[in-house]
């Protein structure tokens, strides 16, 4: 599988997991569980590359970092802005 194909596979797995409901931001361990065949270090590199491309985004609770898809779920700033608009 080429690197691009792998990245697509990772993106699709994240997208499906998010669409299933529950969490809109995933920990690296959540993603690993979806893709047990990919080595964790390789998976982390693929996720980071997807972030650089703008297809994924980082989200932090303050102490741990999660991955999300831009526009899916509510980011902290979006939530604040919504409060402000209301």
């Amino acid at each position: 599988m080429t690197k691009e194909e792998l990245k697509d596979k990772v993106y699709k797995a994240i997208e499906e997991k998010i669409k299933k409901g529950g969490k809109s931001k995933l920990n690296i361990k959540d993603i690993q569980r979806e893709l047990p065949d990919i080595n964790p270090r390789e998976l982390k590199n693929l996720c980071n590359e997807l972030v650089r491309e703008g297809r994924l985004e980082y989200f932090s609770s303050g102490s741990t970092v999660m991955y999300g898809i831009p526009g899916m779920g509510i980011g902290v700033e979006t939530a604040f802005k919504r409060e402000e608009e209301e």
Partner: protein
Amino acid sequence: MSEIKKHDTPMVDELKKGPWPSFVDDIYTYAEKHKKQACFDIMGLLELSYIHKETHWKHGGIVGVFGYGGGVIGRYCDQQEKFPAIWAFHTLRVHQTGAKWYHTSALRKLCDMWDHRGSGIVNFHGSTGDIILLGTVTEQLEPIFFDLTHQLNWDLGGSGSNMRTPACCMGYSLCEWCLYDVQEMDYELSMAFQDELHRPAFPYKFKLKFSGCPLDCVAAVARADLSFIGIWRDNIRIDQEAVRAYVNGELPPNSGAFSDRDWGPFDIKKEVIDFCPTQCMYWDEKEQKLYINDQECNKCMHCIAVMPEALKPGTDTGVCILIGSKSVILEGAQLSTVLVPFIKTEPPYDEIKELVYKIWDHWMEVGKMRERVGELIQRIGLNRYLIDVLGIEPIPQHILMPRVDPYIFWREEEVPGGWTRDIVEFRKRHPA
């Protein structure tokens, strides 16, 4: 410039009183001088928190600048109408230099940038070791990052599920007891692990800290997932003349520290011999001579710190590597445990890097969310971690004391020659 709005802060103002320096005074002085609304607002918000007895800060969301998954910690205030200037008040971690030596011109430039783009409030240093720039808005994050990296040659530190900014003690730059080049190792490993420092990879944080000697000024043994502590394996060097000078009161113990009170004449038995954790020292009153059984010494360095003119660490020096300390969260706080009791190492520290990658690869694979390496070891057991994960043969330094539990279960491959077990034959001799 819009009009500055000041807040009434009687409770916060109480903190200006007393003999100690006050952050309230400092922030107000700065706010008045630079007309910074954000500084007035954080004082107002603090007053409100004192009234409500709860915090009005939220954190999370913003993680970093483009391409970085750490270095910025998002902070938001939930009192945006009252304190609009601190609606967002993000923290930036800036990677400190080895042993925290700075040129004043570098600091001036950093402060000028922060005056311009942030609240102007800094914290030298946060407990991880970084320079903490406190308070800026989201729009300023990328310009700050550009200024830091392209104009000032600084970089962001670690936060979130990243390797955190490594930290070291003053090392050779200031200390006679330093036993290996902590600044060199700090720099080399920081540069080698840039990807892990800036891009989240782990179940939780991972810290490296380097102390030049067992006195451990950076508290590596209590704070780092992997602690590197300078150590020696030959004998403590003794100057018997100087020992006698301490005993006769000619030299002040502890280099004159604790001299604000009269503790009475120096008592070598009470202050040194009896405090030795392994009881490996003996003071012969008749001979006026100090004996040390170095085989038993566990290198706590108490005696050396009390009588620095008389005792010095040995000359065959190296590094002791410990693993697993952490503060509370999943399990309670714990100190590091010895992994490698002594290793001679020098740049580029390839064997250390190899060990770190081995620890990370396993932790990334089997570590649970928010589980530090110390908790992982606790979960699977130190013996299994050493043998199965790191491939290290257990040695006496790995344990605190011999086990008292008599039930020892061996695996067949752990016993030379193994064994064969025929249950049918066994039952012939031992009916169920």
